[in-house]
């Protein structure tokens, strides 16, 4: 009880006049409060505030009879990322040769992010420049805005920076999402995930690295 009932005033009045008993108008709210807080606790504990976030990915249609001869792009100066088991990641520049040196990196901001951001410096500067102009624009000027959007598309299409991603059987889904996320952060415009996974030479090179 949150309140102590005072003794009712009947009987002791002056002159012995009979008065109606004064009933207290206070309602005991304790059970209601108990219930309210119980419900409150329940909803606080069960509700989830943040909706899950999504990473949008568009996969090309599967190769059919007409397109099956399309080969993965060969890149002169591109980066190839090799995702392997135990969260290990290697990369190399340019095309694959038996003398290619694999550079081991990690998924941190000083590893993969630094490599990608440095590699994509050119495009990032251009996009930054467009973004600055976009910020200066008048809200209502949709025509100019659209023009800048087109320009973004143009510089992205013209970008010569290409990243290939290959994974072996040990790579996890987390590895792939981390890489995709880093691509977004580094604003890489062109990247390819190779379905076939690692080439034999790449596997051999990784083995050599391990020794």
């Amino acid at each position, binding site marked *: 009880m949150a*309140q102590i009932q005072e003794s009712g005033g009947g009987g002791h009045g002056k002159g012995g006049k009979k008065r109606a008993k004064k009933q207290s108008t206070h309602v005991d709210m304790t059970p209601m409060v108990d219930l309210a807080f119980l419900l409150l606790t329940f909803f606080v504990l069960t*509700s*989830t505030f943040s909706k899950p976030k999504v*990473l949008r990915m568009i996969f090309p249609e599967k190769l059919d009879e007409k397109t099956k001869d399309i080969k993965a792009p060969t890149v002169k100066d591109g980066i190839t990322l090799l995702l392997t088991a135990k969260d290990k990641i290697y990369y190399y520049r340019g095309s694959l040769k038996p003398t290619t040196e694999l550079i081991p990196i990690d998924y941190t901001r000083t590893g993969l992010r630094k490599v990608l951001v440095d590699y994509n410096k050119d495009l990032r500067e251009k996009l930054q420049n467009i973004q600055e102009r976009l910020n200066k624009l008048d809200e209502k000027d949709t025509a100019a805005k659209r023009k800048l959007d087109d320009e973004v598309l143009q510089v992205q299409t013209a970008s010569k920076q290409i990243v290939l991603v290959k994974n072996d059987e040990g790579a996890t*889904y987390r590895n792939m999402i981390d890489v995709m996320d880093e691509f977004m952060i580094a604003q890489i415009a062109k990247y390819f995930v190779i379905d076939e996974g690692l080439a034999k030479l790449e596997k051999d090179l990784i083995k050599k690295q391990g020794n």
Partner: protein
Amino acid sequence: MPKVKMPRSNPILDMTPMVDLAFLLVTFFMLTSSFKSPEPVVVDPPTSTTKTEIPKQVFMITVDNQGRAFIDLTNAAVKSRVFEKVCNRSGIKVDSLTVKKFAGSGAIGLKISEIPQYLELGANERTKVNQTGVPYDTTGGKSELYWWAYYARLEAHADFKAREEEAKTRKFPFDKSNYIQFSVKAAANAKYDAVKNVIQVFRDAKVKQFQMITGLEAEPSFK
């Protein structure tokens, strides 16, 4: 020494403001919270820095760390229609009660032949069933997951068209964000190849756009 007489104060506490507040908060949490439907598996998705929120209507493909695939659809009407079509194709006869049960059953990862039997079970018994995942092995032609994906894509499109039509006749503004989209919720430590194989099946069924569900990560830094 004379005793100091303390004035007797009334120990009644007015709880009304507190109760007001408590009920206000209860109302708030009741209205904002949404309940999770029971899931046969709990998967822990990886994190990313994207800020896009999950679409309102999704066809959810869950892949756990053993590579089992589970399917679910947020739209009950479309879900029951897809179920009927898939059953029809496999020559399984289902009555309307089973279809109704399926629509409210949450994520499911069973062979189509096992589903009617599973739906007969009560909620408690269902959690005990060891679900093996929707088969997506393509060695024997089209897999069952393919047909789920195929009919889901068709029905999602039909649903979108019907909604658009309805908005037009009723002169409502049309909300495009209700379009059923395909999301993949895979465990962070699932093998990428398993997830890739599931996605491959959907690509076969001409589903190309996916929303990969991820947890939230802090803003990227470059230092």
